[in-house]
């Protein structure tokens, strides 16, 4: 069954999201919610010096936000703080392989927005 938005990559990450187990020794945490759809994303980060050593996204919500968190988590491990804050939304959407409308873009970008707000702490 084909669907514009629900390509295999989204469905695969939704079914088995990467970095979805809570970290026990996180340095920073942050949460973002989307009131309109009820999605919520909690991000936990563990740094070794300036390098992101591990990450967890605990996501309650739709397949798009869960898949986006999973894909983003793979993109960011091993990156420095300055590299993390310069991740662009377009880059994440490209990795996800989708071109969503404004409403669904909010879902796809919720994990990135949680990451960026956690880094500001």
């Amino acid at each position, binding site marked *: *069954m084909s*669907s*514009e*938005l*629900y390509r295999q990559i989204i*469905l695969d990450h939704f079914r088995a999201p990467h970095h979805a187990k809570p970290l026990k020794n996180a340095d920073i945490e942050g949460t973002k919610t989307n*009131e*309109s*759809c*009820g*999605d919520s994303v909690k991000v936990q980060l563990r740094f070794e010096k300036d390098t992101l050593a591990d990450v967890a996204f605990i996501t*309650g*919500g*739709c*397949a*798009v936000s*869960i898949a986006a968190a999973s894909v983003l988590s793979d993109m960011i491990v091993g990156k420095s703080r300055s590299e993390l804050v310069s991740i662009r939304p377009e880059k994440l959407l490209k990795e996800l392989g989708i071109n969503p409308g404004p409403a*669904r873009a909010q*879902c796809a970008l919720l994990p990135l927005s949680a990451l960026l707000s956690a880094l500001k702490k």
Partner: protein
Amino acid sequence: MQDVRSDFPVLKNNPGLAYLDSAASSLRPQSVIEAMDEYYTHYSANVHRGIHHLSEHATEKFENAREKVGAFIGSPNPRQIIFTRNATDSSNMVWRGWASKFLGKEKRILITMMEHHAHFVPALEFCKETGAILDVAPLTEDFRLDESKFHELLEKKPDFVALIHASNVLGTINNVQPLIEAAHRKGAVVMLDMSQSVPHMSLDVRALDPDFAFFSGHKMLAPSGIGVLWVKEKYLEQLSPVTYGGSMIAQVHSDEFALNDPPLRFEAGTPPIAEVIGLGAAVEYMAKIGWDAFGDHESEIIAYTLTSLKKLPYVRLFGPSDAKDRLGVFAFHVAGVPAHDVASILDEHNVAVRAGFHCAQPVHEAYKAGPSVRASTHIYTTKTDIDQLVAGLAKAQQVFK
């Protein structure tokens, strides 16, 4: 209802669309759009202030709409109809303009778990600010208000009761008249949220007897940006305006001012004139169809939707399972597919629904439910729309298999 469908240009301009999001905003008939158009193209002047004939005509149309809306809900006097921005605005006007004067620390407020955020959020904020005590009447397993618990909480003698007439999530229609009567017996002042009921049933505020009641235009075939607050005569003088400025004053001097009479007292500044006229046209349109025809059509669609959804083993429906005392509002979960994703896949199949908490998160929490998908119907909904929904749900299941 094929003849009715041709009255709605959005349906004509979007062939194949199954619009099942009317509980969020209904579509508007051509006559409403034309009434607003006519204002802008023939007499677009300000109201209540011009001497010239365009302004007089605009004022007449504006006040005529107030009379139509008043008659539509059985208001004894049109001056009890206050035009607001929407239902939420109306509710806030009562919390700010009345509750803040008469309720405060140690006063009791009773609401229900079924309330829309338009009641819930101002109530929470008010209690936080003033120290008033909030009681929340729970719901039953079969998606109705727990009336015995409601009556138990009335024994605590609340000073104010805020109650929803029909749930925008469960579709449940509350039998509010006896509840309001009981609340009055205990000395409470009652505010009724009629946002979901006014668009779908014949109502009479004299029979229901709330002290304050409100609804939005955009759910009842009228434009957005216009709502109504109805106030019982004895509370019109108790209610204070929350916005000050033009129109709401009788006279102003450099050191004092005198308030205008209701309802203008509560309508500061230039009102949404075209929207008020549009609301009047919507009420006229509904009256032309008639509640008998309206009710027959809605009952048929509600029964058909219930039967159709119950056949799908992967759909968990919230709300009463029989068509009695029920609106055409169907919130549900699809096994294995998050609500937002169901809505996206339905959209790909030209079915418009809403996903999320529908401005009523506590109702979801009462049933330990996450965000839901909501399909809602109106006078233009057909069985074909429901069939299209069912086919879309089957596709959502297949995509996520």
